[in-house]
């Protein structure tokens, strides 16, 4: 009987090996492992065996069964894998064909710059303030030490709506409003971005509408060296750690002392070139210590409080940083321009 079982195993394994389909395998299983199969038959004839032989043959018959079942399973997996492989091979595609496009828009270059500046100052503890674009003469001029008839009002010819209302010429009125709301006792630390308007004919370097971003810090014991420190930190982050800054005296009606800040020219590294008009420096912003009249009008005692303010033009920064050569590009919205700066 032992021989018979071994023979059956040989036979079955051979058939498993030869099977080339799942159905074929199934047939082999039924033939050898089924209830009517030869192994069952062998087991049925075990009654004739001696007590000693019975467990040995029983064990052997089980082993043979197990062996065949195992072989069938292995073969089955192999056949399925081969079938899947074949199917997948047929599904193969040309991966170099163009993709189905995903629509991607992006921010305007000026927005990117404004938000970059906002975030730099937020990191230094400033908050963002906004205000109306149609301003009163009081907040746009008078509260900023520019009384009616002041010659410096010529510096920024403006669009009036009525005698008392105009398109704001700078975002400084937001500073005056924010200070005024504080009752002259709390510190102010703010950045105000926004659109401003001046009576200019649009050309490559002038625009009747443009963007400004200004900053203000009012507190006890604010020093001019603080202005220098804050602007230096800003410039290094915005333009690169390798850029030098320089402050030089200037004039604004709302600050005294006033400064203008230059950064070293990136094009020539400070040696002088056409971009920096040979000076090695590029003017980037204006500022100064808040004029005592401005503090006083906002309700602060200039003996106790001091502050600094500064302002810059995102268009100018964009022009310097990205080589935009015409300010009108910012407002024409040529898609080729807009897309170019989405990575900015």
């Amino acid at each position, binding site marked *: 009987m032992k021989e018979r079982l071994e023979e059956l195993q040989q036979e079955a394994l051979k058939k498993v090996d030869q099977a080339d389909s799942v159905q074929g395998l199934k047939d082999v299983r039924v033939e050898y492992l089924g209830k009517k199969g030869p192994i069952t038959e062998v087991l049925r004839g075990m009654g004739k065996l001696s007590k000693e032989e019975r467990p040995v043959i029983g064990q052997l018959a089980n082993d043979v069964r197990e062996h065949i079942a195992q072989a069938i399973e292995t073969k089955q997996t192999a056949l399925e894998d081969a079938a899947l492989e074949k199917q997948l091979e047929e599904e193969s595609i040309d991966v170099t064909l163009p993709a189905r496009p995903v629509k991607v828009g992006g921010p305007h270059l000026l927005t990117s710059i404004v938000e970059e500046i906002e975030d730099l100052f937020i990191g230094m503890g400033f908050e963002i303030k906004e205000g109306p674009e149609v301003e009163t003469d009081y907040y746009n001029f008078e509260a900023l030490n520019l009384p009616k008839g002041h010659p410096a009002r010529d510096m920024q010819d403006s669009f009036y709506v009525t005698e008392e209302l105009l398109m704001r010429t700078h975002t400084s009125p937001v500073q005056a409003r924010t200070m005024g709301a504080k009752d002259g006792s709390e*510190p102010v630390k703010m950045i105000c971005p926004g659109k401003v308007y001046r009576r200019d004919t649009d050309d490559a370097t002038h625009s009747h*509408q443009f963007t400004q971003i200004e900053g203000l810090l009012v507190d006890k014991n604010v020093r001019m060296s603080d202005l220098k420190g804050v602007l230096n930190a800003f410039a290094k982050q915005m333009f690169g750690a390798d850029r030098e800054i*320089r402050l030089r005296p200037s004039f604004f009606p709302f600050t005294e002392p006033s400064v203008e800040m230059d950064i070293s020219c990136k094009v020539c590294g400070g040696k002088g070139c056409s971009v920096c008009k040979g000076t090695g420096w590029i003017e980037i912003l204006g500022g100064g210590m808040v004029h005592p009249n401005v503090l006083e009008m906002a309700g602060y005692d200039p003996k106790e409080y001091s502050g600094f303010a500064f302002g810059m033009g995102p268009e100018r920064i964009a022009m310097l940083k990205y080589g935009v050569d015409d300010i009108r590009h*910012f407002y024409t919205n040529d898609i080729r321009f807009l897309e170019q700066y989405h990575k900015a």
Partner: protein
Amino acid sequence: MLVSLNWLQEYIDVSRYSPEELAEIITKTGIEVESVEPVAEEVTGVVVGYVRSCEQHPNADKLNLCQVDVGEETLQIVCGAPNVAEGQKVPVATPGAVLPGNFKIKKTKLRGEESNGMICSLQELGVDEKDVPKEFADGIFVFPEDVEVGANAVSLLNLDDLIIELGLTPNRSDALSMAGVAYEVAAAIDGTYELAEENVKTCGEKTADHVSVVVEDSEANPYYGAFIIKDIQVGPSPLWMRNRLTAAGIRPINNVVDITNYVLMEYGQPLHAFDYDRFGSHTIVTRRAKDGEKMTTLDDQERTLKSDHLVITNGEKAHAIAGVMGGAESEVQDDTTTIILEAAFFDPSVVREASKDHGLRSESSTRFEKGVDPNRVERAGLRACELLAKYAGGTVLDGVVSHDELDRSEKQVTVNTSTINDRLGTDISNEDIADIFRRLQFNYDQNGDEFHVSVPTRRGDITIFEDMLEEVARIYGYDNLPYTLPQGASQAGGLTLEQLLKRKVKAYFEGAGLHETITYSLTHEDKAQMLVSPEVKEKSVSPVALAMPMSEDHGTLRLSMVPELLESLSYNVARKQENLAFYEVGTVFISEEEKVTKQPEEMLRASGALTGEWLSHPWQQEKKSVDFFVAKGILEGLSEQLDLPFSYEKTKLDHMHPGRTATVSVNGKVIGFVGQVHPKLQKQLGLKETYVFDVNLEVLIEEYKKEEKFQTIPRHPSVSRDIALVVDENVTAGSIEATIAEAGSPLVKDVQVFDLYQGEHLDEGKKSLAFRLLYLDPLRTLKDQEVEETHNAILEAVKSQHQAELRG
């Protein structure tokens, strides 16, 4: 202000610095140097030549054959200038000379005659056309007789000078004179300079016997001084003076005019010379003009005056607009022999008004407008007298006849060292501060660390402590200030919820495929009122217009961003960029007044405009043009982002497609619109099908803030049921949806259209709409029976409200 380096060098020694170094020092101490440029391109080999003889060229009518002595030799030169003559001293470019434009002079033959050089005009030497005196405009330049033959013509003509251009801020009008610049440079480089004393010799005759002065408005004219100079011979002024005026950008005219201009440049004090014999009286009366009074100014223009203008009259007729321009009638002419020289102080605002009204901004008005130095008015008159005696043959009469109520006192400003250091963040010593005042030539009394400073009247800009702080800081050097950070209590900076939401909305649009644009707020009156959202239109009484626009295209504030967005689409389409999706977040300006008196409401809105293909993926045959549902989809995405349901209702709006436009509402409030632009307008703009939207962002932000956020995720299963309804084709999906939502409340949480069908198997005029309903109770599992009951209620409701039938 144009500063001749040669002229400055004569006042203060700056020779130890290169021009670039000097420019840098001046810039860093306070006045920005805008440029340093040579007066002319480099010229070499030009000397003074004496024209020994001048004959007509044997072979050419218009040419002359000149024998010119240039010192070492005599050269034969062919010259075509009409004004060349024997006995003249002229600039000669000798062979080997190089003229501007790298023009090299060689020996040559002209019409058979040798020509060994060139007699030059000023233009040929590189002088700007506008700076060339009239008499030499069409020919060669002729030197005065006293120059030496063979001398270097380039330096005689000051062509080797450099011009430093100063960009003066409005406060630094003290540097509108060479003396002022010299004081500034002296402080900057720690040099020495003082304006030299005038030296006038007068004759015995008294000015007061020949003229009197009456000032009617002393506030407008606190000082008026009149000098008389007789025996004047009008002619050219000396070459050096002409050179300096040219360098300063002033064209030389004749000695009298040149001298007044020269003193103006030197002292910063404008002067005026009247022809005494043409003045019409011996009394000078300064007064306010009468409204409508007329006079003819030097430029031969008849001017109509106003009562705020100040005029200089002969008691009757105006002979000058004070500080602005003289009159034609008493202008100095070639035959003038006696002049009245005016040195006056006019109120800055009076001059400013007049110069503005007449559109006349002159070297004179610019200085008066800013305020001249009260201590230099009379001195400038004396300086002019000195020069007139020396260079115009004048005899100066004794004394000045004046009206004088001028305040010449020096302002006092007290500062102390500790406050200065507190404000600057520095540690400057008393000694260093004292040294800064010495360099500025400010007198002071020191008491410990307190300084009582007398501000010289030339520095009218310094009146308070902070002004003096700036003086100290700039001379100390802004470069020397330390870098510190503010010491106050720190606050956490950050964005407000509104600002965050604004950024979130923008990021959403960009993620959805839209490009941000920025358009002008000021637009054409017609465009300002076009494509305005219904709720804005309802609120706005009249658009806000500028009082004096520069152009009609930018004269009115927008009520909608859509027209300018369409303009941007149109611009791009004209440049063959046809598939576009733009959005803008910005303000529109709403006034509820007929005539604007208050600030308009500035409403933050988000608008978009889409045209062309939305999706194009050709090799898989996928292509989709922009349509209503693309635009609506963008709004629905926004609704999802903000977790605020939007509802849509068909509407008609001017310039919009009447069948494809809807209002957008949130919580029952209309907040905007969406739809297709009217085909007529599309055509006008060269656009294909174009869709726009415009919504009020402020309301969205407000509603967002009200909403309860972060609902718990339901743990109980939801049940979904479908219904297909047959309705009349004009019943909107939205209205059925609303009915379902209402009848299904509170169990129905979501209703979605998933099929729309029209055609076969349906009656004419009918359509089938299929909805998927989501039933959910977040707190418990729903029972079949209650879902069934609600579902039946919904069916009843749609049947009764929309005559809907269940589709079999």
